[in-house]
């Protein structure tokens, strides 16, 4: 209940792009991201992917 795994946080990062996370889910994810470099990088990668698609196919 207190410490989500990277596996759960990766899923929440992705699902957070498609639905409103609950307050509990968001809190768990944010707390984990504060201390986990791997999940923070994954979060940046997903943000980059979304921004790229918003510019696709033009880009540059």
């Amino acid at each position: 209940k207190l410490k989500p795994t990277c596996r759960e946080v990766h899923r929440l990062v992705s699902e957070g792009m498609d639905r409103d996370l609950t307050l509990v889910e968001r809190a768990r994810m944010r707390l984990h991201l504060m201390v986990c470099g791997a999940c923070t990088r994954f979060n940046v990668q997903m943000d980059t992917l979304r921004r790229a698609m918003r510019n696709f196919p033009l880009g540059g």
Partner: protein
Amino acid sequence: MTAPDHLHRQLEAMRPQLVRFALLQLRNESLAEDAVQDALIAVLEQPDRFQGQSSLRTYVTGILKFKIIDCLRAATRERPIEYGEDQSEDDVIDALFLADGHTVDMPRQWGNPDQTLEQKDFFRVLEICLEKLPAKAARIFMMREWLELETEEICKELAISSSNAWVLLYRARLRLRECLDLNWFGAHTVKG
């Protein structure tokens, strides 16, 4: 050359690229050709609607998106696609994590997104990665991230549950991330 002639030539020059993008979403050459044709005709019929606030390519792509959405809706009504759970796809997720839920490897640093998105070559690699996605994954991913449809609308169109959609989108993102990681970020020196 008259203005309509000039516009016509510009649109014809764009056609091959537009068909490629429509094909990414529709996965059917004749449907893609039809969607692009409809979009180009819409522009030619009302050239005054293009105000020049964006590039012509951006304007035409915007119209094409709506044509593709119409096309998807018609195709789904005529020939529903089976979007059931595919257990073999779980490998995509399982491969990332250890038994205790931690990541197997530290994800690569992707650097500054602004710099990445300024590079045309990045978008060429992204296009190749999208083409490599399995058809079902590509369709739902493009509906969400390119056509910018809400999840509820996607679920309605594809007759799938929300939880199924979230899992399909998650897998598609993981596949794209892996492809970009190998073919773009792995091949370039990334600065933070």
